[in-house]
């Protein structure tokens, strides 16, 4: 099962660091706005289901915001990242949520990550406000630190669990109305060590 996760957030909130840390378990201290990550894959096991997460990073600069829908169409889930030391970055989260609901639809799974929790002393975003907002939009909230590798596993696991459950429910719905066509094929294979066997198992000489 392949699931698409789009990573959204203002520039410099650390969304690329989160991706890099989660997928490759690496963190680069000295960075400008980005790391070597834009699209990454990761297999994750949710219960008995193995899901392939395709994580799409997006450009965080304001001037590219309008291009967001090109990236987040067909997304199963979104990880919205803000910086707890930057209140403006949380304001933008509210706008992303509205936009995602509008463009992708109401059933997109959303997780909000308050990043840079290692800088708690510089916090500018009220915890109460964040938690109430997350609850009001049906999103889960996690505190994360890409630098200290905190909360990331929980964050992605929660998102993946929601997406897998949603997809399984959809599949079950489809299977309920599915009628096999054509019926069973007749028996065609029996015996022999003759010439046909070579073409069956061996394939070709090329």
């Amino acid at each position, binding site marked *: 099962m392949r699931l698409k996760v789009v990573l959204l957030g203002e520039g410099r909130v650390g969304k690329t660091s989160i991706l890099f840390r989660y997928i490759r378990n690496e963190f680069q201290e000295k960075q400008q706005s980005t790391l070597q990550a834009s699209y990454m894959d990761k297999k994750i096991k949710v219960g008995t289901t193995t899901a392939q997460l395709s994580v799409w990073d997006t450009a965080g600069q304001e001037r590219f915001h309008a291009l967001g829908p090109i990236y987040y169409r067909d997304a199963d889930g979104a990880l919205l990242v803000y910086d707890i030391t930057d209140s403006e970055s949380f304001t933008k989260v509210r706008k992303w949520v509205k936009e995602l609901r509008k463009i992708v639809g109401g059933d997109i799974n959303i997780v909000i990550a308050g990043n840079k929790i290692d800088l708690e002393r510089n916090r500018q975003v009220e915890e109460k406000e964040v938690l109430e907002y997350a609850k009001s939009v049906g999103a889960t909230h996690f505190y994360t630190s890409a630098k200290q590798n905190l909360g990331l596993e929980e964050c992605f696991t929660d998102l993946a669990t929601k997406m897998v459950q949603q997809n399984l429910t959809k599949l079950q719905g489809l299977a309920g109305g599915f009628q096999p066509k054509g019926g069973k*094929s007749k028996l065609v294979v029996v015996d022999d060590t003759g010439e046909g066997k070579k073409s*069956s198992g061996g394939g070709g000489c090329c």
Partner: protein
Amino acid sequence: MPATPPDILTGSSEYVPPVIPLDDLTQVINSTTNRDSSSSDSDDSDLQHLRESLGENGVIVGDVIFSVCGVGLGGGGLEEAVKVISSSPEIIELSVSRILHHPLSACLSKYGLIRESDGLDIVTKQIYIYNERASIFESVSEEGGEEGFNVIINTDAPLKNNPKSTIDDHAMRYYDSTSSYAHRTPNPQTFSLNVKGLRPYILTTVNSIKQDYVISCYDPSSRVFWNSGVRKESEFFGLKEELVELRGSVKQIGVKGGKVELGKFIRKVATLFYTSNLHPSSCACQLKLQSFISLPTSLPKSDTAITSIGLFIFRILLMPVFQQLVGSFLEGLNLIGAEEIIRRVKNNDREFLKSQAKEKGGEIKGFCEKVKRLIYQGCSEDCKVIYERGGGGGGWEQEVDDEIYRCVEISVYGGLRSGVSRVVVNGWRYEDVEFSKRLKSEELKDFKLPEHVQQEWPNSLQEFKTSVETPILPSTKIIGVVQVAKTIEKEYKGTDHLAADDYLPIFIHLLLQSSQESRVCSLVELLKIFLRDEKKLGECGYWVSTVEAAVEFIRGREEEEENEEEEFGKDNLEGLLAKSGFLG
């Protein structure tokens, strides 16, 4: 044939993956031998058990019965056999052949694409013969040297050692009433073939240019596309005469005027090495054709596992059932012609052309996907073996899946390329013109891209031209976009790492530097239309989206400036969405 076979041609009914026959086999074995399925460790042990329990006298469902009490079942033999059975002895002797059919035959049968009566045998035999014939080239290339190019052909030798041409019309004779397993030619002979410089199978499409023609060609052995020189209609007739002189039976291949008919003629001639009897002049005929289609003098040799997979798949696609399947689809597609396009353009009816491009492109993609799945289901074991023999590592499934799709796409899209391209280019002509104007009227600095991306990108630009703009196949173009992203990463001179914040402006930068006459908008639409569903969420989808975003950014820059003060670019967003079709 199933009462209502799934319609694989039109896609009107949902594709259901065929059941691999082994499932059925296990069930029948269990019921026949009255054994509990849970006690069965493997299909091999089941078979062994069955053989032991039945001995030589048992008949199993699926056996091919050649004769009853010595009376063959071919011709009027069945009727005779019934008389024998009704009047005869208690013990009835049956001549039985137990044949392991190729799994592909079961897939084809399930969809009603071959006759149940004999199709399984024919398909199995065709695959076998094609593989045998391909082995001629494998053996000579291994031996090497001038002498090594000579292959001794004995048309009367057992099939196993000597591939003969009993493929199309004669395939049914393998199971004739005489029980002779291999059909024997009426006039057996032995001769030598020199296969030096021979390309046994070349895919061709004839395109018209005013009154003349150009043949688009693809050689699966080297994976190279090329175009022939310009040919007049009379030259096709001339080619046939020359071929008839070498081999009289070529006279039976019809040749008529017009692009379609000439295309059929060339396709038949170009595949004779597989689809007809080997003949002392087989090689000479093929070389004559190669000259006619301007085969490049030096084609690279490709020995990769994937090339071997491709060669195998093209042989599968050469089978009459697939030729018919693809041919029916192409004939039924009803792509609008050049005159209609001109009329729509004159009437400023671009939306019609856009919807046609999306609709027909979707049909082509859907058909390719279905044929790919059919072949994958039926040939995955063969492909795995070939892949491993060719030195391929783990993860063969995805590579094989991609290669099968590519082969099918070449076979299907090759003949439609010019028509599809015409619709797409004219559908998005206005956008391309506006895009070019924008590039001409504004300077790079006007786009205010981050400084760290404003370096020279010669390799990435070249990669974009050669891997995205130039290739013929949409799937190759899409892979090319991923290649461009990788080249950007290598070419980047900064010390920090690249991510989405950088890649998008870099792609914008690349597009601004690319030719002002390029048709980037229609190119992006083509990529979107032909991006396979299963690739949409993955790496290919991501990079195609990045190119699309870069194009939209350049097109929407004016609006961005106008709406700078507006809330979160709301109007800009909706403007872009409307342009890109997201809002219908």
